[in-house]
């Protein structure tokens, strides 16, 4: 899906200001890098000339036979229809706890359960970037949230209490509540960076982990393949299992895949993963290597992928 780019930003600012102070430039560059990595535009940009204006239709399967239709909101800098009137604290809270500025809960279709791991500084940079882009005015269609939730957002309180306030990352095994990523001192710096990127920014587990009946990822089957299709396909088991996962991939295979989308057997992903590849291709080499460091240490979970590999 489409994303905005810094060129818009610099064209805008070049002729309106006497130049950006260096630290603001750095903040915006970092924000752009992270917004691209987190894939915000993949859900929030319908047409690339209206970046982050929302309106993307997302069919979310939350249980067997239970499909809900969401439409993503406008997160451009427009004050009325976008996030132009948000404060930094609003934005950080929405990512950290899944609560909007007016106090209502977000459904986990917005992957705040993963974004909660993003640090405050990074969230600030992302917010600065989104706010620096030109405002796009536009209301988005209402999401169709019927059975069994009927758009009762307060029900999310139960869901959060049961499923968020519990550590479910077997390798990472961090804090027991929502909170930014805390590096593990026993692991290397690269692994920690990779864990941050994979679990927080890229939210891989949201698609690649099987979920229980309540719709939360299952702790001891981390990244072992999705129980529901995303689009037409099932995101596969990406643990180190040899038979059903990616245990046969070597390090160069991983690096190559994240840079180009080409698997060791020459096949390519399509659908949503193609959007992810576009985001991983634009990371710098060190970040990709860090993600691979983390991914190659995932616990091996033998779980056959439902769609067939």
């Amino acid at each position, binding site marked *: 899906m489409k994303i905005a780019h810094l060129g818009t930003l610099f064209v805008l600012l070049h002729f309106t200001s006497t*130049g950006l102070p260096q630290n603001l430039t750095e903040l915006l560059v970092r924000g752009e890098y992270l917004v691209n990595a987190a894939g915000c535009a993949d859900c929030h940009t319908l047409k690339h000339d209206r970046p982050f204006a929302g309106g993307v239709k997302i069919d979310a399967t939350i249980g067997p036979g239970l499909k809900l239709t969401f439409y993503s909101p406008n997160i451009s800098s427009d004050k009325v229809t976008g996030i132009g009137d948000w404060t930094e604290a609003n934005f950080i809270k929405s990512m950290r706890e899944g609560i909007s500025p007016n106090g209502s809960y977000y459904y986990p279709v917005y992957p705040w359960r993963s974004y909660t791991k993003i640090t405050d500084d990074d969230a600030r940079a992302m917010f600065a970037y989104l706010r620096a882009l030109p405002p796009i005015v536009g209301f988005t269609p209402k999401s169709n949230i019927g059975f069994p939730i009927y758009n009762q957002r307060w029900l999310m309180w139960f869901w959060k209490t049961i499923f968020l306030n519990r550590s479910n990352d077997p390798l990472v095994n961090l804090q027991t509540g929502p909170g930014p990523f805390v590096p593990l001192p026993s692991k290397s710096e690269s692994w920690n960076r990779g864990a941050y990127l994979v679990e927080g920014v890229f939210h891989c587990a949201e698609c690649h982990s099987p979920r229980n009946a309540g719709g939360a990822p299952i702790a001891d089957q981390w990244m072992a393949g999705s129980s529901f299709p995303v689009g037409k396909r099932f995101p596969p088991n990406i643990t180190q299992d040899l038979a059903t996962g990616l245990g046969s991939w070597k390090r160069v295979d991983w690096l190559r895949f994240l840079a180009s989308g080409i698997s060791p057997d020459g096949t390519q992903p399509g659908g949503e993963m193609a959007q992810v590849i576009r985001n991983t291709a634009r990371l710098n080499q060190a970040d990709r290597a860090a993600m691979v460091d983390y991914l190659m240490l995932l616990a091996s979970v033998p779980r056959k992928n439902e769609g067939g590999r």
Partner: protein
Amino acid sequence: MKRAYLLSLFLIAGCGDESGSHKPVGAKPETTSTTESVATDAVTIYADVRPIFAAHCSACHPARNGPDWLDYAQAKRYAENNILFRRVVTEKSMPPPGSPQAASITSDEREAIGRWANARGPEQLAAAPGPSTRSKAVAAPSVKEIETTFPSEARSCLNCHGLDGPQAEGKLRIPRLAGQNAPYLLDQLQRFKWRERIDPTNAMNEIAGELSEEVMGNLSKYFATRPAFGNLSMTSELTDSESKLFNRGHVISRQYCVQCHMNPIYPRGTSDPKIPALAGQSEQYLRNQMLYFRDNERRSPLMHEYAKELKKSEIEAVAFYFSVVRQTNHER
């Protein structure tokens, strides 16, 4: 460099005409004709372009942002990473349109900067003054060269995939092979052979069907080593409508294409050797392939995903952009 010093003084003082007051050493008289400027042997060194920088760039750089163009080391970096050439010559986005510097810079000066950037920013002349290896378009191979140096199996490829610059009518939709990634060429030949990729005219399938693995490997390696040409003209004089198309293609390509196809963090610009470099490729070929990807006639789940999001006019803009743009900071 006394001459350069005096000239800088002369220009900064604001008097004297700029077009005729200095000539690069060893150069033919500058012309504004695009065809001649491509073939000229002119070598422009830093001392020749420094006065141009002083007159047209120093008011904003580095005070506002960007490099100090009067410092050779910084200027050379931007010559090498192609940003200077792109901004000043191709896009003409620097000096900013509407500024006094943009009004006063002449096309000769832009050309001089372009020559200097193409030569990767030399400070001095090389020991034997002569054309730098990157400063001019590679000439088409002569018949004799073809007969003596080309492997025999490659000669028949030349009938359609000519290496001779802008392609003749009727062959516009055929891709250039020169300078393409060898693993990509080999992969595509294999796909043609095994009919995983179907050429609409069936020609490539028939031809590749008769090639052995060894020959396909040799051909791929051979064409990869051929210097690419085509869009190496230094003053890409785009018309207004072409500029608009170029800019549109530029914007779209930043979002969709360059991560894998023209990313300077990778050695040859592509994120994998099996991914084709696109800069300088035939415009019609690029457009056709994107349409095939969109309609799944050329099977690539990844490319299909991107192609289906683009409107036809956007595909045309991107195809034009890549056919015109120069490859960044590495040989093709």
